[in-house]
């Protein structure tokens, strides 16, 4: 995504350059305003929020909404489930994906073609929701167990291809030298390939971690007893559809909080971890995206 700095001669700025900046300032506002709005509501006094919801600086600052969701709503256990599945899922996912990708990058492996084909087919054809649901809940009896968050999605074929094409781009000489020294294939993968793959592993780790953190459908389909943060937010959203009469509500809300404020606070709790992580990995995933799409 870098501008070709060498060939870009310093030219005089045209009016169009400033028009572009103006256009993208509008784009930035449209992208960011909803998040700032939600953030402001989550820190604003619930009764005050009912007057008008369009603001990005809390008018009556309070942390009561957050205190409420972590004490009354018991957000702690869903939060822990979300964190656990993200950490464990990402670690096992990166380990397994990179191991498989290395094997499939080895052209001298006898089953290379066959295995690659078997994996790639599943990108285009899948059994669909009902057979998968039956397999997981009825046949394997994984419903409401933590493993349903980890095992079925431990490998994404797209990520395998991503890592494999990265490995293919590494110099062959390193592997050959190690082989002559008598290192076995596992050692070559672990000691030589993995350290060189850090950029693509960071990309894949980000993809898996975001997927795990954001995952909602698997809870909805298989594990409603093992609630994640996303599922809790969904439940709150469903409950909040009841309309509240502003006249009586004010009485009720004197010492409590409004559904909207709670929802916005939970929304922020579910968003912030991603917000913290992704900008730092940007240079990796932009490169990773390009490898996956162009080279393979």
């Amino acid at each position: 995504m870098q501008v070709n700095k060498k060939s870009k001669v310093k030219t005089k700025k045209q009016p169009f350059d400033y028009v572009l900046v103006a256009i993208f300032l509008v784009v930035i506002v449209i992208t960011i305003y909803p998040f700032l709005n939600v953030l402001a509501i989550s820190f604003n006094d619930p009764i005050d929020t009912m007057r008008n919801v369009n603001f990005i600086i809390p008018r009556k600052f309070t942390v009561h909404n957050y205190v409420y969701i972590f004490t009354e709503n018991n957000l702690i256990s869903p939060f822990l489930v979300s964190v656990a599945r993200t950490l464990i899922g990402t670690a096992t996912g990166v380990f397994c994906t990179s191991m498989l990708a290395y094997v499939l990058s080895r052209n001298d492996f006898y089953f290379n073609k066959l295995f690659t084909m078997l994996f790639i087919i599943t990108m285009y054809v899948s059994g669909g929701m009902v057979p998968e649901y039956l397999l997981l809940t009825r046949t394997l009896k994984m419903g409401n167990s933590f493993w349903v968050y980890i095992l079925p999605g431990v490998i994404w074929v797209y990520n395998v291809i991503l890592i494999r094409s990265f490995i293919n781009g590494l110099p062959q000489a390193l592997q050959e030298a190690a082989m002559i020294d008598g290192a076995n294939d596992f050692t070559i993968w672990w000691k030589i390939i993995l350290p060189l793959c850090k950029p693509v592993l960071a990309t894949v780790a980000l993809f898996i971690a975001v997927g795990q953190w954001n995952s909602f459908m698997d809870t909805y389909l298989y594990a409603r007893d093992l609630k994640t943060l996303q599922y809790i937010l969904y439940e709150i959203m469903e409950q909040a559809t009841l309309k509240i009469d502003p006249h009586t509500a004010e009485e009720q809300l004197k010492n409590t909080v409004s559904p909207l404020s709670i929802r916005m606070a939970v929304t922020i709790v579910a968003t912030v971890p991603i917000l913290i992580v992704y900008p730092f990995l940007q240079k990796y995933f932009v490169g990773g995206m390009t490898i996956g799409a162009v080279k393979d």
Partner: protein
Amino acid sequence: MSMKKKGKEKVVKQKFSWSLMWKQRYLLAMSVPFLIWLIIFKYIPLWGWTMAFQEVKPNSFALPVWKRKFVGFANFIQTFQDRLFKQTMLNTIGISILGIFLGTFAAIIFALLLNEICFNKFKKVTQTISYLPHFVSWVIIASIAKMFLNDGGALDVLFGKKLHLMSSNSPLFWVVVCLINVWKEVGWDAIIYLSAMAGIDQGLYEAAKVDGASRFQRMWHITLPGIKPTVVVLLIMSIGGALNVGMERQMLLSNGIVQDHAMVLSWFAYVRGIGTNNYGLGTAIGMFQSVVGIVLLLIANKIAGLLGESRLI
């Protein structure tokens, strides 16, 4: 995503032998467990397609395949005659085509304009911000969207009148869904076009400049043709997935009022298959979606080949 370039790798044709297997025992140990995983989690559900031709209810699921009642194409016929089927197909195709059109158009425009920005710092910040919604889950997006778009929501207040964006039982909901999707994905989708633009020979621009081409002429005659192969490949992929409109997004954004226009095939499979415990019917709907998807992909691929563009498969 497998555009294989032939002849790139020198393949040594190996004969099967046990000594070769022993030599590659580490590679085998590192891949066979995943093959078993693949068979269990991906190929057994494919085998589950047999259920589409059987009557499978919760009590008959435990029976072995050959003991279940074979019903031929009855599940498919029942699907096509379902009172919701026509509207569901219409929604799926409508949302899909509108989504592909709006999404591709917006991402290309976004990339084209961003590529022209000469303030590097500003460009970088803009891009970082534009990725943000992509990484946020649909539950969160839905939570925010409903706050903004529901009756009496922030957008209604802003415009001072009722827009009924989320409460009109009409194809307006398709547009709303697609626009939310554009808002979420435009920055992310633009990555690929931007990297295609970065690959265009800079000499072309210099030459055009010398010939006196204006900035817009350069964008139109150099940048756009330069990214054409990328656009075609991505369009093929999206046409292949035309029926795979995700249930998650539709379910989360919809509500009781707009549900008629939010229902798509995958959600329909859930409602009929798991919701009413008619597993055979649900499988048939999923299989229909999958098979049509493959046919669409092959057709799009063929067309791209005929047009002389790079093909996917």
